[in-house]
């Protein structure tokens, strides 16, 4: 024990750090003001909104969840860059952190505070009622008391998933496609409802018989991996689907989808449909991703912050749909050439139908 004193340990670590990086030069000019000023130095071109603070509280997933927390965080970062606002963020490590974290944001003097995920709706709702002069946003949910200073940001992803379902059905060589979710909650099953309807639409229009595994819209029952973390569960489910001849699979389970991607890559023939972000860019599996169902959380957060900074915040719910491009289908990227033009045309046609209201994608899980 003696030969391994903390002093020795510390000096060892210190030497390591120094050797690696300590030989740089001091900055020519010391920042004169505090750190906030220093940050602003490099962003002189941005609008100066430093009297406006936008804040974000995650759910237990954290900022690196490759799903909606991360998207919201990206939206806020973009807003900081473009508008020069102040910000604060808090990650929740468990459900009981929601209240204290939102409260901490309020105490920090946040003008606009977002809660990410339906689990935060109570915490945000309460804070909104207690602080009528501050603004709040809730992503993927609505606020029970519908306060004047609380804005729900919801996404009618069933519309985009409908298009994805149609594409999947038309591209399937085995006439079998599949989907599964992380946990059976509305913000997940809304994708699956739309996907199911899209597949049905293809069957109807083409008198085809493409079957869907993993979700029964009527019964509201299907396959779920159980959480949003366990990639091996996603892999196992996907291998099941592949064994049942499915060749296009849409996991709606955040990082669990990466397990599905791994299984599909091993399979060689099947394809993946990613959700939330454009998987071609956000994951390493671009070459197997047929397309992605986009849910533009980042854009919605960005827009809401912009309104807030400009003093134009309203409690009017933001509902992302095909019309306002809050949801949509990502480009086909590597599969651009493989997808026949008639399918592409049909997608545009369907998009127009949905926007015009001619076709209504119904889902009991869609935001009301």
């Amino acid at each position: 024990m003696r030969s391994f004193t903390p002093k020795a340990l510390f000096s060892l670590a210190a030497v390591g750090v120094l050797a690696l990086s300590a030989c740089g030069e001091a900055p020519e000019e010391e920042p004169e003001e505090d750190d906030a000023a220093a940050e602003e130095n490099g962003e002189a071109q941005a609008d100066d909104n430093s009297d406006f603070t936008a804040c974000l509280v995650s759910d237990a997933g954290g900022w690196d969840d490759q799903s909606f927390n991360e998207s919201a965080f990206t939206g806020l970062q973009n807003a900081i860059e473009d508008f020069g606002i102040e910000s604060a963020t808090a990650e929740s490590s468990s459900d009981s952190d929601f209240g204290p974290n939102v409260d901490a944001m309020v105490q920090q003097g946040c003008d606009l505070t977002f809660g990410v995920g339906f689990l935060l709706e109570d915490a945000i709702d309460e804070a909104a009622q207690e602080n009528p002069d501050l603004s709040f946003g809730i992503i993927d949910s609505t606020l029970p008391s519908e306060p004047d200073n609380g804005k729900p940001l919801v996404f009618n992803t069933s519309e985009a998933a409908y298009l994805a379902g149609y594409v999947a059905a038309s591209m399937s060589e085995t006439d079998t496609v599949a989907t599964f979710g992380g946990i059976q909650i509305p913000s997940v099953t809304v994708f699956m409802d739309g996907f199911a309807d899209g597949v049905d639409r293809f069957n109807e229009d083409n008198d085809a018989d493409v079957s869907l595994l993993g979700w029964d819209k009527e019964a509201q029952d299907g396959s779920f991996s159980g959480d949003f973390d366990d990639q091996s569960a996603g892999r196992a489910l996907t291998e099941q689907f592949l064994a049942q001849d499915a060749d296009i699979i849409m996991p709606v389970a955040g990082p669990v989808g990466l397990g599905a991607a791994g299984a599909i890559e091993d399979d060689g023939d099947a394809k993946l449909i990613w959700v939330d972000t454009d998987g071609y860019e956000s994951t390493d599996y671009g070459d197997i991703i047929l397309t992605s169902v986009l849910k533009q959380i980042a854009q919605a957060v960005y827009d809401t912050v912009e309104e807030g900074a400009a003093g134009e915040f309203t409690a009017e719910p933001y509902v992302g749909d095909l019309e306002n491009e809050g949801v949509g289908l990502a480009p086909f990227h590597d599969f651009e050439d493989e997808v026949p033009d008639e399918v592409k045309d049909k997608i545009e046609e369907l998009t127009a139908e949905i926007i015009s209201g001619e076709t209504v994608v119904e889902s009991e899980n869609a935001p009301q």
Partner: protein
Amino acid sequence: MSTEKKNNDDAPAAPGGALKEAESRLHYAVRELSQSSWVITLLSVVVALVVGALLILATNPQVQATTGYFFAQPGDFFLTSFEVIRDAYSALFRGAVYDWQAATPDRAIRPITETLVNAVPLILAGLGIAIGFRSGMLNIGGQGQIILGATCAAFIGYAFNLPVGAHLLLALVGGALGGAIWGGIAGVLKAKTGANEVIVTIMLNNIALYLLAWLLRQQWFVQTGSNQPIAAPVEDSARLFGLLGTGFRLHAGILLAIAATVFVWWLLERSTLGFEFRAIGENPDAARTAGINVPKATALVLIIGGGLCGLGGAAHLLGTEYRLGAGIAGTLGFDAITVALLGRSKPLGTFLAGVLFGGLRAGGVLMQAQTGTPIDIVLVLQSVIVLLIAAPPLVRAIFFLPNPDGTAKSPRRRRLKDQQAAEAAQEPAPTQEVTK
């Protein structure tokens, strides 16, 4: 010179031998932990804060910037480091105890009440776990017992309509009962079949988690009319009432925690049942020989421990959360194990450890919000504290404390040590024995 007990033929090459051994080593480790001294505990907290400080420095972008030109202006590095750590830890303190920068006097004292709010479920569940540890049982099932407690309390809380006092009482009792049943399953299995309680309770954690997930999808259960897997809020009449008025979350659960602490002390130190618990924990063979009904006591330990964990879950739900979601237990069940270990399985120790962890949690919120220090640092602090308590020699080496084997220690310790040495002297080197 002990001769082998001559019932070798009873257990011819017991198939569970390796497991049994692992189990007894676990028990030994827990006992060791529970006997570490207060000094070690305090010093562990100090070391953890130092380790936390190093991590804060390592992850702080401003400090990283100054290391880039360390040789050019070393002063920068040290000044920045100092400021970063000062800010982080003062935020931790302000978030946990007293916020001198707060806008109003109410907000200034609010942190300590938040600490207590966080501490309530930790103390209650920690006591439940501690009873198990004192009785030689490693109840890893706090998580499941908390979930069951919260679930029962919540359902009673929103599904029934009862007068004010009775509703709360019924919800609390229901919560305790839920935890007790969950703990009791493990207890009865261990008592009747000798099943390893560690394995059973871990499995019951998973079952509880999925049971709750299933329940939250049943409309008869959640009673919200929405598809979200979250139950209706409990009625006001079933909520643990606030103690300090609006602006504070501190609720009557803290009184419950204090009462439970006193009760557990009485149970373990003054009651005949607690005597049995401790006896089977220290030496089940001697307990059996003295006529104690070991299986019955074993089952009761886990029933009562589970009941306390369930009460913790109920108090958490009825006092702060009000709505039952899949994440209701968070990491409470596992934190409770740490709290019980840190509190050396003593009631007062567990209470204080619960307050400490509650404070770290409350302070972590402010630290993250104001200084951007990741909340994970708090988890690291908790873990390092327990790690160091588990390795007293390390702490002694860091602070150059004498080894208890050495000379500078209390006479009782020396006497103990001498006797151990004498025994070692009597005993030849580890010997294998031959049965005939």
